[in-house]
């Protein structure tokens, strides 16, 4: 049912019409969607009143199931049921095989893309993730009475590298979502708490999810959330605690090798046992598999003993992050707990002990990230024009280039505030060298082999010079989503090369577009119509944006300039009505965008000036 909007008496709904924006927590184990309704952020439930969607995708002969139904099949049809697929995003087949020994899947690799073989053919982690996102998108759309969603904020673990972020964004695009921003999960959690309590100071966010661990140190002052440092472990989470119990079960039942269904059973029993131990001192686990029947008893003490090394590992990362932030443990005002795994009593105890503070758990640790993302999405679509809130995030892992001898030259160190642009000069190694191959790396180690190779590209057409005479300026740019683009230029000749870094084992733009097409069951005309509609929405957005800017700052243009710009706006308004192809309308939008470039630049300079004038006025 559509919700009718009623404006306050004397106030029209336009021009600040409420736009539909959602926040999605695409989790390893569970995923959620939230939105801000009547000023309050809420997670949205499905028809069965369930808020959490298990991040499980089951491929069957007849179709695709996502969530609880898929999960039910996990033990029965393990090969075709993709569980915790987020762990595989942005990774190669080799990465996954070396990291996870016990997977019940058939893995394959084709043209550099890693796939899981299912009964529906090869499925890559981006496609599987997009199925989860699609399900959440539909859930939100249903709750809005079928209205279109303007945009979404999708959360990612803070330490996700470029390949994993790109993979997440591709999955969202594949699901037909307009991504307003990729937001780090801990930052989202801090937003959810920060706006609630309104206090200022240093906040530590301890986020132990199903498959990943993150620690972030943030400072909140004057409405600005500044991430000071992040750290963590991309492959440490609740699943690892389960794995310890699986090992223990195997030991107790004297099993060395398990077939896929038995392994699946052991894993779900381990998980249930771990959860029960948060409430009880002792749990009896019944294991019935392959004609065998065992009962294994697990005490809280035993579990704590098994878990201690893992918890300690997280605290080591905490210490490093505190140090990177340039603060001490005592300066931490609050500790926010995020992720279902922080329900384990041993985790709460140890973290409380480490920071010498009782951790905050008042918002459901499973929902807090989605709630923060929804708050941010609401602001980003422009529903709260007076909002003072701003998030300043950092680059989680250093970015660099490979140099001679397999060494890494860091261009942007980790924990640098983004967006950021940094350049460094390199030179040729041999006399008469006319090309240079650049390998982009991400990671903290000194050796190339220990870092993640993000992309390779080459700069060709360097004029032959003596070794060391050419000056190659390499520029790294990271946007607010944490996504990287790299350009290289030979300074004396201006020869250039540029790439949007698409990870070696991710998908190219063309591949994403193709998958998008394949996934739509429309005929070509429907596709055209849909794209035209999208461009019409975009045209309207651009027209409204420029008109709004004109209302605010017409004085920055002289009469002639104003007349020209207004004529261009009128042109697009007409084109929007008459254009028959998306390409034509797109060209028109670009034209208006170009025509407004001077105005945009002046407005930017003007806001910079005003920002600081405003400040000195405040101080008087």
């Amino acid at each position, binding site marked *: 049912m559509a919700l009718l909007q009623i404006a306050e008496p004397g106030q029209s709904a336009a021009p600040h019409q409420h736009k539909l924006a959602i926040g999605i927590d695409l989790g390893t184990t569970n995923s959620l969607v939230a939105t801000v309704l009547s000023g309050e952020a809420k997670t949205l439930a499905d028809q069965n009143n369930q808020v959490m969607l298990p991040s499980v995708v089951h491929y069957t002969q007849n179709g695709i199931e996502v969530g609880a139904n898929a999960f039910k099949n996990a033990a029965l049809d393990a090969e075709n049921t993709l569980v915790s697929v987020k762990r595989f995003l942005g990774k190669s087949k080799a990465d996954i095989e070396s990291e996870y020994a016990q997977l019940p899947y058939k893995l394959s690799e084709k043209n550099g893309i890693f796939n899981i073989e299912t009964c529906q053919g090869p499925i890559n982690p981006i496609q599987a993730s997009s199925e989860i996102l699609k399900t959440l998108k539909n859930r939100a759309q249903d709750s809005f009475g079928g209205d279109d969603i303007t*945009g979404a904020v999708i959360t990612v673990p803070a330490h996700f590298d470029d390949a994993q972020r790109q993979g997440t964004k591709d999955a969202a695009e594949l699901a037909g979502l307009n991504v*307003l*921003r990729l937001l780090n999960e801990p930052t989202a959690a801090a937003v959810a708490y920060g706006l609630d309590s309104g206090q200022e100071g240093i906040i530590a966010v301890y986020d132990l999810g199903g498959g990943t661990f993150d620690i972030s140190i943030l400072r909140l*002052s*004057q*409405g*600005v959330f*500044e991430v000071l440092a992040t750290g963590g472990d991309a492959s440490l989470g609740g699943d690892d605690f389960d794995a310890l119990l699986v090992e223990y079960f195997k030991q107790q039942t004297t099993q060395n090798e398990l077939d896929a269904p038995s392994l699946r059973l052991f894993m779900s029993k381990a998980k249930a046992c771990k959860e029960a131990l948060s409430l009880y001192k002792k749990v009896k686990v019944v294991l019935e598999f392959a004609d065998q029947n065992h009962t294994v008893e697990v005490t809280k003490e035993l579990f704590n003993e098994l878990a201690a090394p893992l918890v300690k590992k997280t605290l*080591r990362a905490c*210490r490093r992050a505190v140090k990177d932030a340039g603060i001490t443990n005592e300066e931490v005002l609050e500790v926010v707990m995020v992720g279902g795994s922080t329900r384990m009593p041993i985790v709460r105890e140890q973290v409380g002990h480490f920071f010498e503070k009782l951790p905050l758990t008042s918002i459901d640790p499973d929902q807090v990230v989605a709630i923060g993302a929804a708050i941010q999405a609401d*602001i*980003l*679509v*422009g529903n709260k024009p007076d909002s*003072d809130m*701003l*998030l*300043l995030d950092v680059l989680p892992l250093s970015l660099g280039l490979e140099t001679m001898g397999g060494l890494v030259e860091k261009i942007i160190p980790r924990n*640098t*505030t*983004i*967006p*950021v*642009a*940094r350049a460094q*000069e390199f030179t040729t190694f041999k006399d008469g060298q006319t090309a240079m191959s650049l390998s982009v790396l991400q990671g903290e180690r000194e050796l190339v082999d220990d870092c993640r190779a993000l992309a390779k590209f080459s700069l060709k057409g360097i004029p032959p010079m003596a070794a060391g005479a050419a000056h190659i300026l390499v520029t790294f*740019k990271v*946007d*607010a989503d944490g996504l990287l683009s790299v350009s290289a230029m030979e300074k004396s000749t201006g020869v250039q090369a540029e790439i949007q870094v698409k990870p070696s084992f991710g998908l190219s733009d063309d591949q994403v577009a193709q998958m998008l097409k394949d996934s739509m069951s429309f005929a070509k005309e429907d596709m055209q119509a849909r794209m035209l509609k999208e461009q019409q929405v975009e045209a309207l*957005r*651009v027209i409204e*944006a*420029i008109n709004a*800017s004109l209302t605010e700052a017409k004085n920055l243009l002289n009469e002639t300039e104003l007349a020209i710009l207004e004529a261009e706006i009128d042109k697009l308004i007409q084109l929007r009505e008459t254009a028959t192809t998306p390409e034509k309308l797109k060209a028109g939008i670009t034209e*208006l*965008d*170009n025509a*407004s*470039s001077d105005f*945009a*630049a002046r*407005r*930017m300079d003007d*806001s*910079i000036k*005003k*920002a*600081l004038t*405003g*400040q*000195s006025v405040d101080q008087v």
Partner: protein
Amino acid sequence: MKYFELFSLPINYNIDLALLNQAYLQLQKAVHPDKFAHKTSREQLLAVQKSAEINDALHVLKHPLKRAEYMLAERGIDIRAEQQTLQDPMFLMQQMELREELEDISLANDPEEAVEAFDKEIKTLEKDFHQQLTALIEQTELIQLERAADIVRKLKFIYKLRDELERVEDALFDD
């Protein structure tokens, strides 16, 4: 000195970090890409550029060494990409001694005490160089600025020692 102007701060090596940070937050509130998420792509692009520029300016002004290098570069002495070695045997000798001392820390009877003593030692040196630098960097004569550049080169050694001390500390006290 456009970085100082950007933050509306007086050109001064002894910068007011609280004011710098306040101006920084005000500027980011005005230009951060998030403030342009529903604007035209032109404005979004500009916002990313400006925001990155402001981040870079903060990065340079916040760090004493980078700030000094920037100020010297603006005054015509760019030592940011140089490979030049320092011509000061006395100083280099002292550095070698300090390095040996650093290496011996892990062997000391009480490593924690040794770390603290060493930390104190380099802090004293650092303070001394900063004072000299403050006096020299405001000068306009080339010879004074060259001397300031030499101090910056020496400070780089000190900062490197500090980083290495941290590494030693990590190795000693992690776990």
